[in-house]
Each structure stands twice: as structure tokens, then as C-alpha cells.
């Protein structure tokens, strides 16, 4: 039905020119070694075999073709070590979506994800940002510490997107980012129906840039 982006980077830039593509910022939050980077890496790698990031592996852009529109996801990886927790709020300023990644084999990482959620709730109103709870390393089901039901229940209580993935075996990685992308577009339309019209389509105004603009004015102080 939908296919994720074009086979290589060159094509994607030419696509940018012909279609008005909106850029959405997605931040990856979660403990170290839950596989944030691998998740993004897997998502981008699968579609862009040739244009792998030659150096960095913490900032990615990926074009995503949805039914009605083409958008660009900008994926920001963040440092998950606990000692950087106090400065990480700088990362998600102006973000459109946040992925709270945890490791299904580690209860601790799931608790950390809940902590991240609290931080996000301080910074954003509920309809300002799309939040997805992601249980990674689904391939290690034998060592599971957090059940699917637990995750699902928590996500539902906070009305988050929920998905279990495996970056290693490429399970539901594309599905995750597509769902997030779609959710961002829908949210944007709900949030600004007066400006862009209710229907998701390329005719929308440059609404996605607004939160970024507003946030840009505040100095990034810790």
C-alpha cells in the first residue's frame, strides 16, 4: 500500500524538489543499549543500501511516502546514559514525535522510558507531539522481562502509540516509522484545520514549521 521512500538519496532529493515535502523531527529516547541507534540504522539502511551514513550514525533523514503526501522524517538519536539525562531536554525541543525505546528484556529500561514520558509531558501539551512506546529486541522473547500486555496497557493509559520491534531481525521497524509518520501528519491536520484544511494532502500550508519556529526563539539554556 505505502512504500517507504525511494531507492536512493539522489532520487529523494529530486523528489523533494517536485513535491513539497514537509520535514518532521523525530527524537529517539531511551536507555543505552536498548537499540535506539540500531533501530534508526535499520530503518534507514533497509531503504538506502547505497547511501549509508559514512560517518555518523545518530542523525538521519528519511523520505516517507504516505498515501496522500510525502514527508521527510528527520531522526535525532540522543545519548541515553543516565548522566546526560539532565541536559537531554535540549534535544526534544521543537520535535514533532518522540520514540520512547525500551528493551523488552530489561525492566529497568522500561521504567526509564516512563521517566522520559514524564519529562516530555512537562515540555509539551498532549496534542503537540506524537509519542510512541517501542519495545525493542523482540527477537529475545525468551529473556523477556516486560510483557506485551504490560507495554500495551501502559501505552493505552497514556494514549501513546505502541509497538514491539526488533532491529536485529527487522521486525516491524518500517511499520513503526510509517505509523509515526502517519500519526504526525494526522495530528498536524487536526491541530491546524483552519489553515491547512482537514484533508491530509500536499496542499497544506507550512504548518509543520511552526513549532520549530516558536521553539527557536528560546535560548537553549540548561
Amino acid at each position, binding site marked *: 500500500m505505502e512504500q517507504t521512500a525511494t531507492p536512493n538519496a539522489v532520487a529523494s532529493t529530486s523528489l523533494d*524538489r517536485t513535491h*513539497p515535502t514537509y*520535514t518532521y*523531527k523525530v527524537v*529517539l529516547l531511551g536507555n*543505552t*543499549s536498548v537499540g*535506539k*541507534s540500531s533501530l534508526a*540504522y535499520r530503518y534507514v539502511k533497509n531503504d538506502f543500501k547505497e547511501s*549509508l*551514513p559514512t*560517518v*555518523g*550514525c*545518530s*542523525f538521519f533523514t528519511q523520505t516517507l511516502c504516505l498515501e496522500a503526501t510525502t514527508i521527510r522524517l*528527520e531522526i*535525532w*538519536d*540522543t*545519548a*541515553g*546514559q543516565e*548522566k*546526560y539525562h*539532565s*541536559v*537531554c531536554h*535540549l*534535544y526534544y*525541543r*521543537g520535535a514533532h514525535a518522540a520514540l520512547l525505546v525500551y528493551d523488552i528484556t530489561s525492566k529497568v529500561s522500561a521504567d526509564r522510558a516512563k521517566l522520559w514520558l514524564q519529562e516530555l509531558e512537562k515540555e509539551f501539551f498532549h496534542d503537540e507531539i506524537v509519542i510512541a512506546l517501542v519495545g525493542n529486541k523482540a527477537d529475545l522473547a525468551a529473556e523477556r522481562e516486560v510483557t506485551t500486555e504490560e507495554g500495551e496497557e501502559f501505552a493505552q493509559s497514556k494514549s501513546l502509540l505502541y509497538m514491539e520491534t526488533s532491529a536485529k531481525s527487522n521486525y516491524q521497524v518500517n511499520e513503526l516509522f510509517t505509523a509515526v509518520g502517519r500519526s504526525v501528519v494526522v495530528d498536524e491536520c487536526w491541530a491546524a484545520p483552519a489553515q491547512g484544511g482537514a484533508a491530509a494532502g500536499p496542499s497544506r500550508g*507550512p504548518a509543520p*514549521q511552526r513549532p*520549530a*519556529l516558536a*521553539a*527557536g*526563539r528560546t*535560548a*537553549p*539554556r*540548561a
Partner: protein
Amino acid sequence: MSLKSERRGIHVDQSELLCKKGCGYYGNPAWQGFCSKCWREEYHKARQKQIQEDWELAERLQREEEEAYASSQSTQGAQSLTFSKFEEKKTNEKTRKVTTVKKFFTASSRAGAKKELQETKTPSPSINRQASIETDRVSKEFIEFLKTYQKPGQDIYKQCKLFLDTMNHKRDLSIEEQSECAQDFYQNVAEKLQTRWKVPPEKVEKAMDQIERYIMTRQYKYVFCPETTDDEKKDLAVQKRIRALHWVTPQMLCVPVNEEIPEVSDMVVKAITDIIEMDSKRVPREKLACITKCSKHIFNAIKITKNEPASADDFLPTLIYIVLKGNPPRLQSNIQYITRFCNPSRLMTGEDGYYFTNLCCAVAFIEKLDAQSLNLSQEDFDRYMSGQTSPKKQESESWSPDTCLGVKQMYKNLDLLSQLNERQERIVSEAKKLEKDLIDWTDGITKEVQDIVEKYPLEIKPKSQALAAIDSENVENDKLPPPLQPQVYAG
């Protein structure tokens, strides 16, 4: 004077002491062999020439700007109101320039009293000149660039001029308000480019970059680290903080970079150079480019060390380490300036924005850094912070290869010295022990001897009577017949 030189034993010909111009006065090496009067004349001749050249350049630039503007007028038609305003400003600028030049001449023609005053001022015009040359170059390139945009180009130029004009009137406002103005301006122009002038999207971005470059080169000196803010104080605080943290090692920060690999240390040096270079740029976007360049080098360094692409978990600690090692000048001012005056769409999204955010995180982390975040005990952290000890001494093997050889040697020597010291102390203590042993030994012997002496005291007994009695009993021995004498018989 000849007497003086004779006394010193140096022969100087009378003619060498005279002014090079041959006016008959004595010259002075400080004035390159001229007398004070001739030197002033020579010096100002050179100065005037320079001023003349600058003036010509300025005129030429102005002509070009006017030409560009005139062509816009011919296509535009009635815009007389803004144009006259524009002209007025031009003439203002011109007269201002002329008066400054005049001031120069009057000052130079006066002798004596004002000389010192003027000489102390000499460095400043040259700096101003450099800055203004750069500004002129940027303006020229901007005009050239706008020509490729035809009609919208002229409109853009007009908008920028208007903006700079309003900014000039807003110098008294707080920096936040000025920043607000700039941000509004960026947004307005971008919108106009898209909707009114129908510029294709990829050209909008390019135009925005050029506009930012043009206006920020001109605004820089007013809005970078302005006196109304405490940016400078913050700069100094961060600098001091980083200096106090000089002892932090890559191991403490868990930096996944091995500087013993030559390529890696090369990358580290490059990254440090880039982050330091940021301060020298005037345009926010160019500053951002420096950060991005620095980050790329960091990623390379990690990649070479770990043999796999780095993630954010590796990148941030390394960036923190680079900032600590480089101690880039005016860090807070630069961050504040970029935040206030960069085109906001660049800051919150895009690669540049990502790396800038990382830098902000790094600085925030450095400000908050404590014992726990370095996996140290509070006592160790306090000791290192107060400069009492340095952890480097124990870990001298972990020196990076780019450290100055002399410093390395020095630390090696220090190590050796401390080892020598230790040995010497050991020898001294052993010698003392030996001495003590010797003393103990003699004491012991003495004691033993005494004990023995005590145990067996030397008693001189009175002459035994018995013996004497024996002798005395033999009194009659004298009465004994004498012993037989051997006799020789003739036979």
C-alpha cells in the same frame, strides 16, 4: 652625542645620526632614521594614501550599489518614498565618511600636543578598515548574487536595507527584542519569497542563506556579546570551569576514542581546530558550519577507533571531551548569538541544528558536571578540582601522542625524580636502621659484658694463709744441707 658614543666605545659617524631626509636635524631609529618632523610627514603620506585607496573602494562599491538600485527603480517605477529615504541614508553615510576623513587630516596637520593621542589611536582604524573591507566584500557578493534573481532580487535588497535601517533605530532595545526583529524578518522574507515573488523552494533556501550572511555581517558588531547582557560573564565562567577541569581524561568520560592511533589523534586535533574556529566567523550559519565540521571529525575518530559507525551514545561524550580539550573562546556568546540571530529553520531541524543542539548539551553538561558523572568519588573530585593532585601522574602512559614532547619528557623526569626520591629515602632509612643496629649491638655487647662482670665479679681474695704457712713451715729449709754438687773424678 659624539662624546657619548665615544664613551661607549662605539664609533658612529656624525652623518648616520642625522635625519635621512637631510634636513639637518638628528634622526631617531624609532622613526626609521627620520627626525620627528620628517617622520610625521612620511608617515602621514603613507596613511593618506591608504585612506585614499579605501575611499576609492568605498566609492566604487557605492556606485555599484546605486547602479543596482537604479536598475531596480527603472523596472519598479514609483517607489519614490523608500528611494528618497534610501538616498538620504546614503548621503548621510557619505558625509559621515567625509567628516571622519577630514578629522584625520586636521589631526595630522596639527603638531605636537595631539601626536601621542593620535598614535595611541592608530591601531583601531586599521582594524576597522579590515572589518569594513570584509563587509564591503560581502555586500558586493550579495549584490552579485541578487542579480541572478532578477526582479525579486531587487526587492530582497530593498527589504534588507529597510531591515538594517530599522535595526539601527533599535539599538537601545534589549537583545531579545532585537533577536525577535531578526527572526520576524527572516520569516517575512521567506514567506514573501515563496508566495509573493514565487521563487522556487530550492532557491528560497539559498537566498535566505545569502540574506542572513549580508545582514549579519553588518549587525555582528552590535549584537554579538552585547554589553547589555551578561554573555561575557558567562563566557568567563565557562572558560574558568573548563580550565578547572583540565585533568579530566577520556577514560573518565567513557570516550570511545583511542588517541594513540595517529589518524584518530589527527581527527581530534582537527575537531578542536574547527570548534575554536567558530569564534572567528561572523555569520551564524558559518558558525554552525564549523560545529558541523567538528562533529564530522569526531564521528570519524570514533569510527576509526571502534570500527563501526558511532551512535549518539558515543558522540556526546566525545564532543564534551573535545570542548574540554579545546576550551573554545567565547563559547556562551557564540551559542547565544547563534540562537538569537540564526535563521530558526536551521536551528531546530537539519544536520546543523542537530550538532548545535549537541554542543548546547555538551556545554550544559560541563556546567553541571560532578563527581558522579565522571565515576569518581567526591573526595577525589574535590582534590582534583582544587588542583592538589592530578590523576595524570598515575596514568602517564595514557598521554595522547599530540602532547608536547617537552611536557611528556618533563613528566617522565618528574616520575624518575620521584622514584629516585623514594629510593633515597629507603637508603636513608636503611642506613639509619644500620646505625641503630650498630648502636644496639655495641649496647648489647656492653650489657652482656656488664652482666657477666656482674655475675662473676672480680674478687681479689686476700693472700691465702695456707700457702704462706707452707712456705713458713719450710723455714728450716735454710738449715738443710746444701744440695750435692757434681764432682769430677780423675780416672
